[in-house]
């Protein structure tokens, strides 16, 4: 089996009139973690969405296991978990229901596994409440539980620590550290830097 490896070659992306990505390139192997930094509007989110193949770059390509992700898109997406700015949750479903549908569409998940993940993010007491009644931090925790439940090699995270308290940020750190120790890959756009639990972080700085 081919090694899990993400390579990015010479990405160029325009958003309207702006040349946002100007020749971004990097490679990330098993256990590698990349931190994407830069001021607002420097194209962090655009880069992450391009890596997910949501956005089609003007030039350049993204390779997964040595192959252009466009060639085998479903396989690439099956290996990928993406968390955007907002947790992808339905306000009118409970946290548990949300996870059951969101994760269930991708993989079969046992109830016990769900419980464990919710407990891990500290949600045992509120996981049956409707998401609309949860705080922003709690919603972010539900999203983190989903991330862990997906069990995929490549994580792409947009500001994973937003809205989280200190303990929540440590949780992000330990989740990422575990993912890396399993041989997973993590790419995260961050404002400051990833929690200290994550070591050996490479950094990609985007300029506006």
């Amino acid at each position, binding site marked *: *089996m081919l090694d899990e490896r993400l390579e990015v070659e010479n990405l160029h992306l325009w958003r309207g009139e702006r040349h946002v990505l100007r020749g971004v390139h990097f490679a990330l192997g098993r256990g590698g973690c990349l931190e994407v930094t830069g001021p607002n509007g420097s194209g962090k989110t655009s880069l992450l969405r391009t890596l997910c193949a*949501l956005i089609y770059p003007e030039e350049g390509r993204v390779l997964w296991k040595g192959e252009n992700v466009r060639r085998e898109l479903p396989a690439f997406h*099956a290996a*990928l978990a*993406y968390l955007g700015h907002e947790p*992808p949750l339905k306000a009118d479903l409970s946290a548990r229901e949300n996870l*059951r*549908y969101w994760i269930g569409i*991708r993989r079969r998940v046992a109830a016990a596994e769900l*419980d464990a993940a919710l407990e891990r993010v500290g949600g045992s007491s509120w996981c049956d409440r409707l998401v609309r009644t949860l705080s922003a931090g709690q919603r972010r925790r539900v999203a983190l539980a989903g991330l862990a439940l997906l069990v995929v090699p490549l994580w792409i995270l947009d500001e994973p620590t937003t809205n989280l308290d200190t303990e929540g940020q440590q949780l992000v750190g330990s989740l990422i550290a575990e993912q890396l120790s399993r041989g997973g890959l993590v790419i995260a756009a961050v404002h400051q830097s990833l929690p200290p639990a994550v070591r050996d972080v490479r950094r990609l700085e985007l300029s506006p």
Partner: protein
Amino acid sequence: MSTPGAPAAALTRAAAADDGAGSTPAAGALDAVRLALLRDLKLAFRKRGQLVQPLAFFALVTMLFPLAVSPELSRLREIAPGVIWVAALLASLLALEFLFRDDAYDGTLEQYALSGQSLTWLVFAKTAAHWLLTGLPLALMAPLAALSLGAPSASLPGIVGSVAVGSVALSLIGSIGAALTLGMKRSGALLSLLTLPLSLPVLIFGARATQLAISGGPLLAPLELLGALAVLGVTLAPLAAAAAVRVSLE
């Protein structure tokens, strides 16, 4: 984290079991479709107010005609097919705006597009849910409208059948328009401009079938044509709508 021990370990074990091979106990396409459908149905029943709106709209539009034209049942019977179909078309159009909008807003569509499952099938599931929540109730309500417009009771099965089949095609055509107008601020008028011209064949065949049902004629021919449109829609519309959803995420 109160007890980082056992559950976390269970989680790690589960992760370890799947490690390397992607996510192994992957859900099949059928599971995905079933769950997407169930999710939309459950959400709809949590917001019942939105469900009733198109039906109330349909009843209201039907009621306008006796008031605007004439209360004479013999005259109403003549225009009944047109009234029922125009009202059904507009009611289903009204509901279309909600087809993808919430999902686009909260990031669910993005997760669908990145799920590794076929987006076409997931879009199909959403459209199916939309039909179950609007098209089917409209078909069940059509007999009431028909009766109030002077249609004989023998015509009711034919009317239910034609609206049921025709609304499948309407939902599918509408899904393309709804996906294309995603992300626009005021999409209502544009959505009608895109959807109505494409819906005309459904209107023509549907109204003809209803007319034949009321006059007691053989309505198989227009019903078959409606069915053909629905089949064509099932095979092509989700593809186009899924492509449009991807464009909206770019």
